[in-house]
Structure formats: structure tokens, C-alpha cells
């Protein structure tokens, strides 16, 4: 066996040893064909071509695997984006509700006797916090089934408002 043919055979055997399970048959087939190639140079070129073909196959499979994985990650990112948009929309809804409720309270203050905050009774303060909180909770319940992320956004706003009220109570009292 000439040196060229030895190189070709060794190269193919090395590739066969390291080939993936799905390429093993093809690598074996290419190696076996070497025995039927008359010219040594042709055998070496056959081996180089075979290695290239197997390498391309493996890299194509790897690319497909990576693309598949990236596709999953992209789907996860899209899901996350949708949820974030939902939560932000929920906060927007809560803000709109709060504006409506406080607007109604502001209008009501012209007709009710607690227009002066210094003299505002505890009941009035409770209305100021209870009404928006109640509206947030109703909105969250209404949205929970079909627009869960929006409902979460509304609930977050309710928690922020409640926390703000609690801090206000703790620092200023009623």
C-alpha cells in the first residue's frame, strides 16, 4: 500500500471513529469505497471529499440543532414580551381607574363636607383608599381569566397604592 493510500485510509478511519451515530454508516460506506479506487491520488482525493461531506453533514445538523434551540428561546422571549406588555397595560388600566375614582371623589368633595384635608374625617380617608383599591380588585378579577398579565399589572398597582397608604399612615398618621 502506497503512502498516499495509507494516509487516505487512516484519515477515513479516524473520521469513522469520531463520526456521530447517524453518520457512521455513511462514513463506513465512503471508507469501503476506497478499496475500489485504482489511483492512489484519486483515493486520497476521495478521502478528502468524504471528510468534507461528513463535516458538512455534521455542521448542518449542529446548525439545525442550534437554530431549533434559538427558536425556542425566541418563543420564550416573545412570551416574556407579551407578559411585560400585559403587565404595563394593567398598570395603565389601574392608573386610568385611579384617575376616574379620584376625579369622582374630587367632584364629590364639592358636595360633601370633607373638602378640607386637614379636617377630613377618617371615613373620608378610608373612602379615598378603599374605592380605588376596590376598583383595582374588581378589575383584576374581571381580567384574571382572559388577560392574566393585565390583571397582575392592576394588582401590582393596588399593592403599590396600599403600600403608599400604609407608609403615609405610619409617617403622618390619619
Amino acid at each position, binding site marked *: 500500500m502506497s503512502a498516499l493510500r495509507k494516509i487516505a485510509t487512516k484519515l477515513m478511519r479516524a473520521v469513522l471513529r469520531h463520526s456521530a451515530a447517524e453518520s457512521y*454508516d455513511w462514513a463506513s460506506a*465512503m471508507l*469501503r469505497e476506497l478499496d475500489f479506487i485504482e489511483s492512489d491520488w484519486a483515493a486520497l482525493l476521495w478521502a478528502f471529499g468524504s471528510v468534507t*461531506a461528513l463535516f*458538512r*453533514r455534521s455542521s448542518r445538523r449542529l446548525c439545525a440543532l442550534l437554530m431549533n434551540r434559538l427558536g425556542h428561546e425566541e418563543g420564550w422571549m416573545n412570551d416574556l414580551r407579551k407578559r411585560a406588555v400585559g403587565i404595563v397595560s394593567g398598570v395603565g388600566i389601574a392608573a386610568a381607574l385611579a384617575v376616574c375614582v379620584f376625579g369622582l371623589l374630587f367632584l364629590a368633595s364639592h358636595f360633601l363636607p370633607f373638602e378640607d384635608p386637614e379636617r377630613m374625617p377618617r371615613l373620608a380617608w378610608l373612602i379615598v383608599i378603599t374605592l380605588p383599591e376596590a376598583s383595582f380588585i374588581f378589575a383584576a378579577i374581571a381580567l384574571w381569566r382572559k388577560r392574566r398579565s393585565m390583571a397582575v399589572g392592576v394588582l401590582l398597582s393596588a399593592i403599590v397604592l396600599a403600600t403608599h397608604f400604609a407608609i403615609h399612615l405610619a409617617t403622618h398618621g390619619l
Partner: protein
Amino acid sequence: MKFRLSPQTLETLNTFLQEPKDWKYGYDISRNTGLKSGTLYPILMRLAERKLLETSWETSEPGKPPRHLYRLTPDGLRFAREHRLVRSAGHTGAAAWSRG
């Protein structure tokens, strides 16, 4: 699924169509088509993946490793005949796209 019908793929399919029922060796296909192993085997792999080509192992010589054989499946034959007709009618340029 799209399947790229390059001139080399068409040449390989035509080689199989010469004796459609006979099994062929890789090196013989390479000699008939003039394609190097680096071009021929990816074509054979793609055809086999799409079930257009069937493969088999020949164990004629005892003590020797088996040799790989290739033949078009019935689907592959139909596909090759369709595209041979397309090519002979002059509808295919350097490369064509088809659904395999």
C-alpha cells in the same frame, strides 16, 4: 419540504434512471456522473433523508467489510422521472426548486 435540484442532483438522478432496478455503488456513481465524493455523498444523503433513495449493504466477499449500495425508491423513481422530463423540456436552468 423544499428540495434543491442542482444540476449535480439531476445528474445523479439520471444515473439511477439508467438502470432503475439495479443497486449501485458510490464509486460507480461518482465515475458515471463525474462528481467527487464531497459533492456526491451530500446528494445521496439528502435523497436518502427524503426517502427518495434506499440503501443496502452488500456482503459478497467473506472477511471483507460490506459495501454500501444505493437505489431509488418508487417515490424516488417517480420524482426522478418527473424532473428528467422537466429538464428535457427545457424548463430547468442551472438549478431548480421542487417539493420533495
